[in-house]
């Protein structure tokens, strides 16, 4: 055992490997920060080169990109309100509010620390208890998944405080948007209104960025235009830009503040690790669920949505905590649980290692080296993030008159580049119109996105369950795990209702 650890660490801490990890993290943070692009894309681009590198180096590069990308998404989410990656959508709710209140540095640091803590937790779970957790993940069939999705939807209903009805309504709109395209069971097109471009459905990235970011950017644009008109009319002295009034020294995250976010971070780490291990559930669901639960258990739930650091910490930790556990099904059974895991699986295959149960036995050293690299990449992420953050918080404070057009254009081109899809750009703009309308009518936006994310999964799970049960609705409560979820949902909603009553 000791020999193995020494050999593996010799592999993992080779200077070249370290260099590749750092290069990867840098690349990942930068790509993640651009709306629409994510680490996944860079990994796909680099796949052929993996063959020409030593496995340890290749792994270092890919792991670095992946982890950097997970955190990088939160930079754009906080700085511009544009989630750089789907996983960062929940982060943008509080992160962007915190930035508007002149606290970009606090927000970014909270995101960085919670991201690293969540990620590390998840990696440790991968290393030490992958096999038992994988067994749990396998017992999730369609019936259990449907219960999980129903549970998440109940949670969002409870999440939109004070306007539960409107929250439910937008969640329904989100589900409807997700239904556009091919029916997963019969394969026929539906709700496409005769447009062939819609037959594959709306992709996540344009809907997400359109709803959250484009609508926000348009509202900001409106404010700017109003200010410009006022200025032309009154000819008042030029308004000081935000940057001039911004003092980064007053915007440091204090120890007390950091400690106050820890509970939310742990909740995120636990939820993210669990959701990450379920094949197909995904980062965004993990982030939103962590956010909802952290709000339930927070001492100051009323601050959520208004720039709460706890909100940032829970979302970001939940998002990043999928990083390690998403490999659990891949290592245990060779099942890629996410797009990232599928790409890593492809990289393993190109390096001559078959993902699956034999992976660890046949390639013990390199897998242990990968474990070291996973942990080490978190350190690199922390350090590089720390070094870069002061610059990023300054960027966030550039005069909006110049920043907003640039962000808008980057969002459009980035969305196109993510899938090379023209349809996606039109979807992005349509989602922007929808987002502006819903904002004007004061609908909460988060439930819509969650509805959109879990809609297809929920539908597929429901219909698969029904097919398996021969059309009998009772099949939905035929599993103890599913019953557990339904009970938990009812308990949470009751708890929440009474807690709210008590406060009033």
């Amino acid at each position, binding site marked *: 055992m000791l020999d193995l650890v020494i050999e593996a660490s010799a592999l993992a801490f080779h200077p070249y490997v370290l260099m590749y990890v750092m290069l990867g993290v840098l690349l990942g943070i*930068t790509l993640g920060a651009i709306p629409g692009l994510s680490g996944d894309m860079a990994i796909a681009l680099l796949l052929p080169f993996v063959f020409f590198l030593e496995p340890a180096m290749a792994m270092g590069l890919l792991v670095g990109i992946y982890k950097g990308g997970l955190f990088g998404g939160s930079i754009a989410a906080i700085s511009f309100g544009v989630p750089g990656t789907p996983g960062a959508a929940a982060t943008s709710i509080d992160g962007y509010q915190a930035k508007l209140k002149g606290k970009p540095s606090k927000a970014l640091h909270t995101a960085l620390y919670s991201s690293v803590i969540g990620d590390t937790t998840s990696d440790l779970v991968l290393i030490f208890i992958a096999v038992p957790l994988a067994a749990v993940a396998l017992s999730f069939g369609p019936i259990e998944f449907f219960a999980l999705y129903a549970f998440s939807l109940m949670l969002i209903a409870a999440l939109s405080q004070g306007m539960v009805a409107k929250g439910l309504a937008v969640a329904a709109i989100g589900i409807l948007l997700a239904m556009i395209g091919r029916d997963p069971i019969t394969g026929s097109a539906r709700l496409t209104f005769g447009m062939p471009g819609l037959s*594959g459905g709306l992709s996540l990235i344009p809907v997400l960025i359109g709803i959250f970011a484009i609508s926000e950017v348009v509202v900001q644009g409106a404010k700017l235009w109003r200010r410009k008109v006022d200025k032309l009319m009154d000819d008042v002295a030029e308004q000081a830009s935000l940057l001039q009034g911004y003092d980064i020294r007053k915007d440091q995250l204090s120890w007390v503040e950091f400690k106050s976010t820890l509970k939310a971070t742990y909740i995120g780490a636990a939820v993210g690790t669990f959701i990450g291990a379920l094949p197909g559930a995904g980062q965004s669901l993990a982030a939103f669920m962590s956010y909802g639960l952290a709000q339930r258990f927070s001492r100051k739930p009323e601050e959520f949505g208004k720039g709460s650091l706890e909100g940032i910490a829970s979302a970001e930790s939940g998002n990043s905590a999928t990083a390690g556990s998403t490999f659990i099904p891949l290592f245990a*059974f060779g099942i890629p649980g996410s797009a990232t895991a599928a790409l890593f699986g492809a990289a393993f295959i190109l390096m001559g290692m078959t993902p699956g149960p034999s992976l660890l036995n046949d390639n013990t050293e390199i897998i242990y080296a990968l474990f070291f690299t996973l942990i080490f990449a978190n350190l690199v992420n922390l350090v590089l993030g720390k070094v870069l953050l002061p610059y990023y918080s300054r960027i966030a404070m550039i005069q909006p008159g110049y920043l907003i057009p640039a962000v808008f254009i980057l969002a459009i081109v980035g969305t196109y580049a993510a899938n090379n899809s023209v349809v996606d750009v039109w979807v992005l703009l349509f989602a922007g119109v929808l987002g502006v309308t819903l904002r004007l009518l004061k609908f909460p936006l988060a439930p819509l996105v969650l509805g959109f994310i879990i809609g297809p999964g929920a539908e597929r799970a429901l219909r698969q369950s029904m097919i398996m049960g021969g059309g009998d609705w009772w099949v939905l409560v035929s599993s103890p795990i599913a019953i557990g979820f339904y009970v938990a949902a009812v308990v949470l909603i009751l708890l929440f209702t009474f807690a709210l009553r008590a406060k009033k």
Partner: protein
Amino acid sequence: MMTPKMSKISVAISAAMISTAMLSTSAAASDAESLLGSDPIRIVMPYGAGGSTDITARIIAANAAEYCGTRIDVVSMPGAGGMEGLQFVADAEPNGHTILMADYSATITQTLTEDTDWEVEDWAPIVHLTDWKPTVYVKADHPIQSIEDWIELAEAEPNTLIFGHADPLSLVHLPLVLLEMETGIQNVHLPTTGGGETRTMILGGHAHLGMTLPPSIVSNVEEGEVTAIGVFADERSDVLPDVPTFQEAGYDVSFEAPLLVYTFSSVSDEIQQALADCIMQGLETETAQTMSNQASAGLNNVQGRESAQQIYRETTERVQEVLAAIEQD
């Protein structure tokens, strides 16, 4: 202020990436070069990144560039169920710089069943890369352990066995439809999101049988977690040599799925030939073969245009027959 900061980082990165890319393209020239010019060639793949097709496309990109005289990029366009990828290739200038790589689900089945701008004949297959052999498998501790067990149980209790497969009418579903027509057995068809989900369902005991392509279950078969019971092909699969074909078991159902590289038919004959030649040359190299073996991509018997066109015609006929038979039901 943002701009100089970002570009500094990205210049460094792009420099690194470009120099790596140069290493792989700088060498040799060939007659393909004069015909094709120096613009990059794009292999459009109408699937998500990371799957078996993606790996194969990237093996081509890494090895054929040298012989085609220019860089080869792999572009993943899964949008609109893959239709966006086909549309992009169909709309591209017919200079051979935008080519398609796909199995028959995209070019034949979807073209026949959906309303598209092109016909099946508009796709000109130029390279026949490999044949995928749809394989039926079960969990290792399931009472069904052979084709005979399956048919027997399905005949005794029709519509109780749950059969997981990816998209309806895809290459891992049509063979099942054919077999049911041949034998009269009935199974519950459970569509999944793909091979990964099918395998989760088999391993978790949620579905009884599943269909997939051999490379994706080799490791689970070797570990004794699942048993592959039969292959829908004329011959056994190289990677699963112990698994019988359905023909061996006495059922005349075989439906291999050729993986082809296509150009749109408006591309000139010379360019089609030049592309076919340089891709085949690239795949014959030792590096390409090693990559293929490691990935179980099966690129050891790559065939040119004639074979590709013939297999394309045959597959089209078969798909038409099956679709017509389904219509009648």
